[in-house]
């Protein structure tokens, strides 16, 4: 069951709905948001995912990070 999340990419003008799977890594979550916003924001290689004001380890899954439906996460230059 996908988990709907509010994703905010630094440089973008609007938040986007990202449907994540529990097993998605933080890194793949960042990639999903960058792809979704690519019309407006050029892709960057080095980014960080920030969740609850903390930078997340890119290797862990969103289940391990504790993401819940309709939470906010940010992808910022890292």
């Amino acid at each position, binding site marked *: 069951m996908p988990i*709907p999340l*509010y994703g*905010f990419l*630094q*440089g*973008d*003008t*609007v*938040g*986007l*709905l*990202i449907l994540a799977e529990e097993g998605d890594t933080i890194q793949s979550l960042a990639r999903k948001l960058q792809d*979704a*916003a*690519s*019309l*407006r*924001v*050029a892709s960057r290689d080095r980014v960080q995912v920030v969740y609850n004001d903390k930078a997340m380890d890119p290797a862990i899954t969103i289940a391990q990070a504790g993401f819940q*439906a*309709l*939470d*906010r996460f*940010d992808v910022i230059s890292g």
Partner: protein
Amino acid sequence: MLSREEWLPLARKLDWDYSYVREEDVFPEVMSGHPWLPHAEWKDWEESFKTSYREYVDNQYEKDMAVQAVRDAVGRIENVQKLAAPWLNCLKVHAAALPLAEFTGVIGNLRGARFGRDSAWRTMATFGALDEYRHTQIPLLLFHPLVRLDSQFDWAHKFYHTNNWFSVAARHFFDELTVGQNAIEFHIATNFVFETGFTNLQFVGLASLAHESNDHMFERMVTSIQTDEARHAQIGPPVVATVMKHDPEYVQYLVDKWFWRNWRMFSILTGFSIDYLTALEQRPYSFKEFMEEWIIDQFLRTLDEYGLKKPWYWDILMDELDIYHHMIYASAYSYRATLWFNFVVPGPAERKWLRQKYPKYWDDMDAVWEQVSKRWRTVGPGAANEFAVHGAVMPTFCDLCQLPLSAGTPRKNTARVLVHEGRKYIFCSEPCQWIFLHEPARYASHKDVLKRVLSGEAPNQLPNLLTEYFNLTPDTWGKDAYSGNYDWLRPVAKNSAA
């Protein structure tokens, strides 16, 4: 026979003491509004126009004839065809947003005409209701026939009857402002904040824009409407003055809440119109300059006059003058098929002008337009490529204003998540959350478009969402006004200078 000066004051101030019912039952608080006060507190309610019904009808007839004459002279389809493509879309925005919103104003004014607390107030609200009928009929009369020129003008009638995301936001706003409101909040929110604060002056600005754009029909229409607004907006100040004597904190709350809610709608309608949909050489000012000169200064003077303070979020609002409508416009451009009018990409000359007018955050906005332009260059111009330069993933919306989560700056979006009574909400900004928390029962059960999609009430695939839920068709959904075919986007031939 009494002279006008003798009978008009008698007719306008026709209040009496009730013998068979209590005053609280004739004017219950739920309809008349808070604070409930005996009529003695309202008996000095007064406004300066003091119009009789006969004078009202004579004046309105003259104004309608003037609009009709201009329409006959310059309002034909062949005249409209000569207007610049971006401006034509400014007309479509207003053709949809204006008429039925004005009709909700009829309902609000009729509530004031029955439940206003003094007969002079009720008389003026009756004229206000007639004004708002006129403001419904005129734009429908002028705009809807243009459907023969362009099917997007069908949204003059259709807009508020759809679940289009902007329609959902506009209904959320106008339903609360006008349709479901008690008399006191309606007249403070609508006459004192919306009309005195925004639209009365907005219409002066719009008339000036229309004049510069050679659209004399629209110029005449908004000028004619503005003269009505200037009159019936006079209901608000004496209501504010009386309530200030008894519950100033409540007035401050209403002003703070409604200035913010008005700003959200106004910045989109007028911000788009001035900074993007008016040709560069015809822009008399930027949206920010217009706000500072026409709205902000006047609003602060009015607040001071009534002993009110600046809204607590004033610094946030001042910052948004530089960025909010730009964030929304870029977002809406990239989801233009979800709307009923067409958009333009600002070219190098427009972006230079925008940088000059909005230096604070323009670097970040410019990067967005550079990326959009790059996509058009990659796929090439043409209607067939529209969806290659369009968002595919669902955008998100605020649980209060129902508009996209586009507040803050590209560097830092100000959206905030709140858990309230076990349910998760998201707001675009601190003021939207503040309004929600002040009256959660009023707002909590409403679902934004995204939550309707997630709950299965609305389709989750973009084509179905557009056609089945937003009532758009390939003919009417928004496009790039030039299909990406901009001179400045064409590659320059290497030997062109030779």
